[in-house]
């Protein structure tokens, strides 16, 4: 366990230093209004994105421990000058004015993330981290190359986070990817702080906005255990912060960079970036009185930079899979033939997503009830735990209080626009994480405004609302992490978790331990091959992906078993299928069996 912890600490530290080297030029392009901590976080965030992009491009040819180490070493070398400059800064620059309560909330959440991040990530294939966020990097390292897995179409998604997970695996072992949540969450908090400062809050008020954000379980759910939504939200909000206040060409270069990194992290970035560019242009036009031609020129520059940053993922998909966006969107499903997916399977896939993301309906009434439902019924959007009550209690007052500030108004409009597009497409709470810190910023603004009323009853009422929101949110976050925290301190509990939450564990143990296993054939789409350390061939994916066009079912595959070049078969009885290998099949020998699982050796 100690080795795993040291490995994770080492990997995340080295990656942070390398990110600092990759983003060393970002701090020079930031406006003078940015504080030292904001400069540090934006440099790290942009650097992480650039480092990931470099690894992705190199990984098309070779994604091995050697190439990862080499790339990281180059960026660590580049960071020397920036780190020296950082160390020479006066210590007074780092002093922060932050109240005891918000500081305690932020530290508690970060500490929980750090400790829980050292626990083993377990679960079934319904967990996105196990199904693809962590599976992809593990297989890429095994194969020595970054390629979408044919049976897991979601590994063709933009993969800024996943590439970093791969590097963390290579540098620090199995626990490093989940431990890296500490780094991304800390950057995200500083971006939220930066937004609050730009919206008109003082330093103390801005840290309160961060505390409101930190105590939102619906935000936290996208931050840990291999989830990538918080990193995506950090890129989008960093773009908003830089773009809505950009002072000339350098600001728009950074704006384009963060827009591109958003699109290179999640497909939802493709919808968010046009909105970002639109509102950045509006902000420039009304806030800085810049001529229309200049605004247009800057917007085009940002779009071009963003497109260049994100394009490798989309071009790769186009070349390898037949469509830049893979799986192709519903309206392309019948028009664009793609590999491994039939139009029927695609329609089923989107029907599932649409049903899951229907939340509480799509009518006008449901739209206007969103603030209420997002506060009280977040579980309907798969965002159990909610966003606390400060957004609803103080947010509207914050909008009123900040009505004279252009940045705040544009930020509010951008958030409303994001929420509207989310409402019209997939109402999955995690996809709305970029809007939640904005609600927290306006909550802090509203609270400050309410305090100006200055009746003791009002102040007490506000205190109660904030206390209730923070305590409830922290309780939900801590209780969700309890198993992870406990398993770090108790090896017996960790072992119990390992046994209870990994499906078909005994078969994986058998296959991983047997040196004669060269390649395993897996039939059932729900088998979480993340736990298999050997090469494998999985014929059918969870969403209807079909790896071999000629093998439409297990029986056909068994007829051609010799051509598949597999040494073993893992056959299971799951919720979607029975055992698929008939007993006493010639050419196969049953070598291991346990409850609902059988392993055959191919003779």
């Amino acid at each position, binding site marked *: 366990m100690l080795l795993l912890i040291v490995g994770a600490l080492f990997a995340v530290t080295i990656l942070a230093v390398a990110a600092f080297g990759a983003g060393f030029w970002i701090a020079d392009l930031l406006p003078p209004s940015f504080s030292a901590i904001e400069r540090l976080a934006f440099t790290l965030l942009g650097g992480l994105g650039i480092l990931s992009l470099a690894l992705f491009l190199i990984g098309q040819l070779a994604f091995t421990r050697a190439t990862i180490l080499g790339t990281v070493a180059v960026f660590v070398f580049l960071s020397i000058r920036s780190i020296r400059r950082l160390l020479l800064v006066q210590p007074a620059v780092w002093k922060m004015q932050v109240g005891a309560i918000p500081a305690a909330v932020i530290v508690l959440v970060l500490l929980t993330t750090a400790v829980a991040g050292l626990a083993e990530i377990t679960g079934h294939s319904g967990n996105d981290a196990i199904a693809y966020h962590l599976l992809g990097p593990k297989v890429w390292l095994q194969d020595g190359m970054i390629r979408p897995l044919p049976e897991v179409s979601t590994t063709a998604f933009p993969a800024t986070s996943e590439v970093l997970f791969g590097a963390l695996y290579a540098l620090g072992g199995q626990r490093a990817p989940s431990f890296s949540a500490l780094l991304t969450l800390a950057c995200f908090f500083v971006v939220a702080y930066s937004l609050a400062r730009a919206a008109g809050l003082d330093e103390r008020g801005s840290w309160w906005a961060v505390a409101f954000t930190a105590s939102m379980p619906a935000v936290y759910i996208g931050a840990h255990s291999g989830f990538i939504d918080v990193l995506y939200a950090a890129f989008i909000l960093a773009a908003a912060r830089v773009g809505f206040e950009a002072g000339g060409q350098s600001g728009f270069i950074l704006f384009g960079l963060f827009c591109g990194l958003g699109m290179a992290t999640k497909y939802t970035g493709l919808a968010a970036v046009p909105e970002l560019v639109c509102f950045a242009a509006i902000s420039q036009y009304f806030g800085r009185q810049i001529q229309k031609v200049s605004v247009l020129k800057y917007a085009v520059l940002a779009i071009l930079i963003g497109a260049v940053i994100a394009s490798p993922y989309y071009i790769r998909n186009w070349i390898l899979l037949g469509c830049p966006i893979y799986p192709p969107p519903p309206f392309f499903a019948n028009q664009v033939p793609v590999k491994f997916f039939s139009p029927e399977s695609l329609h089923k896939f989107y029907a599932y997503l649409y049903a899951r993301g229907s939340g509480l309906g799509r009518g006008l009434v449901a739209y206007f009830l969103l603030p209420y439902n997002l506060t*009280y019924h977040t579980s309907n959007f798969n965002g159990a735990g909610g966003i606390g009550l400060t957004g609803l209690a103080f947010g509207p007052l914050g909008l009123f209080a900040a009505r004279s500030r252009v940045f705040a108004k544009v930020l509010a409009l951008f958030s409303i626009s994001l929420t509207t597009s989310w409402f019209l497409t997939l109402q999955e709470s995690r996809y709305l994480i970029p809007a939640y810190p904005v609600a927290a910023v306006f909550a802090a603004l509203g609270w400050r405004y309410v305090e100006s009323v200055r009746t003791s009853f009002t102040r007490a009422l506000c205190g109660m609302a904030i206390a209730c929101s923070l305590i409830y949110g922290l309780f939900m976050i801590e209780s969700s992490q309890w198993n992870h925290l406990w398993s770090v301190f108790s090896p017996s509990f960790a072992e119990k978790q390992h046994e209870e939450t990994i499906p078909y564990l005994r078969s994986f143990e058998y296959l991983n331990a047997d040196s004669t296993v060269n390649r395993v054939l897996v039939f059932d789409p729900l088998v979480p091959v993340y736990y298999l350390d050997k090469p494998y061939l999985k014929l059918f994916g969870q969403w209807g992906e079909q790896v071999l066009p000629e093998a439409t079912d297990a029986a056909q595959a068994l007829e051609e078993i010799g051509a598949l070049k597999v040494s073993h078969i893992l056959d299971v009885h799951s919720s979607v299928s029975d055992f698929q290998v008939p007993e006493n099949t010639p050419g196969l020998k049953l070598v291991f069996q346990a409850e609902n699982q059988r392993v055959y050796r191919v003779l």
Partner: protein
Amino acid sequence: MESRFIPDPASTVKPTIRTLWRNLWPIIIDLWVASVLLLFIAIRVIGSNTGKHLLQALGIH
């Protein structure tokens, strides 16, 4: 001459509405925050599974 003693409606009504609004505004804010807080306690705390179990344990159904 008499008209000089007739009060101007605009000059009297405006301050009255403003004063009324100034007094009402804090009350509206209090009501808003209190209702959000009470709804939160009712729905997210008492209405949650944990809350229901606690109430049952206390014999309140």
